[in-house]
């Protein structure tokens, strides 16, 4: 009997990316105090290597599809998609960070370890098939991100960002945990597939009130993490205060992972009560789009502007969620991938341009960048155009598929409002373009330094990803389509 305690080796392969990332993170952590300061930039390389191996591990795990560890995790196309997405975001974030950390503070080892651990958490979230695993993944990811947000501990803005993120994040996570407790009490299980079975069997189904409360509490937790209204208040302050590469990371990776669990829980466990949660998601999507886009109109700080834009984009994905269909799920997946590239790219430009101590983070500081650094400006333009949703960029097809899914779900009003919102959004993105190209170079643009190699790679890779998704969307969409059918 004892021998049977060993998990089959397939189970271990199914969590290969997490294993690899944990080892890489620990390695970075252990090497950090052992290395001499001037050799610490090696750690960034180790982190990237670890992430690349994890990406390979994701592909290996994908060959062994199916549940593992007593159905606590499941490897399906959906999991593979989000694992790959958060790992790629991790790679891009590390690339942006190497130069940033050298600029702001020399000892940098823990930073990479924290990124890796955060990615571990997100990867667990992507594959979790059970509420406790979801919670553990979310906490691993969140706690690492809280620390990252305040990484430059002598910087007051970082401190503010971290403490706000931590307090409000814990508050929201408590709601999630409470919701998990309720559904366990009501359904007697934390396995998503089991919950679904219980809820959809009339003889077993607990009172709808209990299930509704549980779904509501969990919705609070998820909506907070994806920064959907009315739980978006933290995002602008936190995004603005955190170091720019960290903002790049946490506006893409944790958000995508949070959507992954959101979709998985609501499309499997709570699907039997979809007629209850659909209007809530609908309203939330509506409010999120409005809050994000209209508040962004007035922003001068570019990080804050992108924070509001990030809220608005969460709103678009919420539209896809409220479509409540496999097409909607696929559209949300595609959009998150496109969003990851264009947003990380935009923040990479901010990272590069802000200079020591993040001095230049206002929209007006960008004046004349188009003349001083035409290539950087051109890449930034690609990201901005994609954020607007101009054809030939990933953002266009993302919006296209989302609104297509919404139309097929007969959400006509939401589609119309969403389209109007994207028109409003065009204004504040275009303003950046105008400042960049049609204003005389100011002090910030005059003194701009050459792009650091890591940032350069991140910029080009993000631009390539954005355009790839815009020109050959089927590359990703096919996979998303095939993966949208979750295990039920």
């Amino acid at each position, binding site marked *: 009997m*004892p*021998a049977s*305690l*060993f998990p089959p080796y397939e189970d271990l392969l199914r969590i290969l990316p997490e294993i690899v990332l944990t080892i890489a993170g*620990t390695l970075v*952590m*252990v090497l*950090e*105090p*052992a290395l001499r*300061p001037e050799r610490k930039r090696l750690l960034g390389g180790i982190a990237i290597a670890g992430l690349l191996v994890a990406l390979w591990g994701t592909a290996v795990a994908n060959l062994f599809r199916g549940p593992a560890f007593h159905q606590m995790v499941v490897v399906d196309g959906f999991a593979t998609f989000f694992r790959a997405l958060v790992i790629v975001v991790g790679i891009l974030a590390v690339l942006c960070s190497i130069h940033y950390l050298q600029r702001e503070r020399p*000892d940098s080892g823990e930073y990479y370890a924290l990124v890796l651990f955060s990615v571990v958490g997100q990867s667990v979230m992507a594959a979790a098939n059970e509420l406790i695993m979801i919670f553990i993944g979310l906490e691993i990811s969140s706690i690492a991100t809280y620390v990252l947000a305040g990484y430059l501990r002598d910087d007051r803005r970082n401190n503010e960002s971290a403490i706000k993120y931590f307090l409000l994040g814990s508050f929201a996570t408590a709601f999630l945990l409470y919701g998990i407790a309720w559904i366990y*009490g*009501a359904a007697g299980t934390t396995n998503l597939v089991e919950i679904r079975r219980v809820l959809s069997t009339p003889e077993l189904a*607990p*009172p709808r009130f*209990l299930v509704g409360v549980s779904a509501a509490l969990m919705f609070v937790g998820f909506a907070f993490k994806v920064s959907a209204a009315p739980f978006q208040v933290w995002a602008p302050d936190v995004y603005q205060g955190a170091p720019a590469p960290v903002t790049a990371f946490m506006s893409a990776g944790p958000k995508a992972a949070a959507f992954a669990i959101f979709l998985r829980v609501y499309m499997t466990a709570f699907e039997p009560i979809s007629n209850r949660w659909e209007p809530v998601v609908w309203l939330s999507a509506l409010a999120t789009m409005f809050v994000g886009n209209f508040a962004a109109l007035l922003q001068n700080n570019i990080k804050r502007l992108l924070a509001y834009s990030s809220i608005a984009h969460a709103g678009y994905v919420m539209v896809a969620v409220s479509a409540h269909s496999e097409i909607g799920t696929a559209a949300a997946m595609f959009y998150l991938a496109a969003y990851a590239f264009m947003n990380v790219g935009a923040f990479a430009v901010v990272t590069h341009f802000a200079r020591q101590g993040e001095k230049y983070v206002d929209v007006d500081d960008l004046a004349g960048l188009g003349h001083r650094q035409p290539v950087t400006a051109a890449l930034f333009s690609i990201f901005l155009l994609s954020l607007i949703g101009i054809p030939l960029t990933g953002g266009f097809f993302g919006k296209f598929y989302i609104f297509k899914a919404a139309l097929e779900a007969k959400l006509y009003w939401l589609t119309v409002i969403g389209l109007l919102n994207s028109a409003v959004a065009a204004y504040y993105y275009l303003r950046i373009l105008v400042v960049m190209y049609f204003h005389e170079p100011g002090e910030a643009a005059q003194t701009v330094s050459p792009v650091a190699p890591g940032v350069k790679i991140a910029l080009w890779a993000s631009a390539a990803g954005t355009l790839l998704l815009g020109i050959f969307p089927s590359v990703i969409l096919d996979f998303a389509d095939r993966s949208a059918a979750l295990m039920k």
Partner: protein
Amino acid sequence: MPSSYPEQYFPIVLQIAIAMAIAGAMVAASYLLGKRVRNPVKDSAYESGMVPVGTARERFSVKFYLVAMIFILFDVEVVFLYPWAVVYRDLGLYGFLVMFLFFDLVLWGFYYMWKKGVLDWSEEPPRS
């Protein structure tokens, strides 16, 4: 078998009610029965103890917090050993390996902490 979910939770409701009743009763009893005497000695922070010197809101070295946190961490980890030890024979080699891995990770954490100078109480700033 209780017929509905609220009924299932009835014992818990009962327990909460009893707990609150007892606590309330105790506070009420001491309020009602106790004598109220107010004088400087009675109101001092440590009756019959040392007289406090200066304010209590002093700044401590951050190392106190670090050590306290590390203590809790390792304490919890040691607590984890007890249930494992109880079922050690049933778990066999698997249990041993898993625990080994667990302690391996804890030790690496310890190594990190040590190298970072958390245990170093001298005044000069830690290396690196």
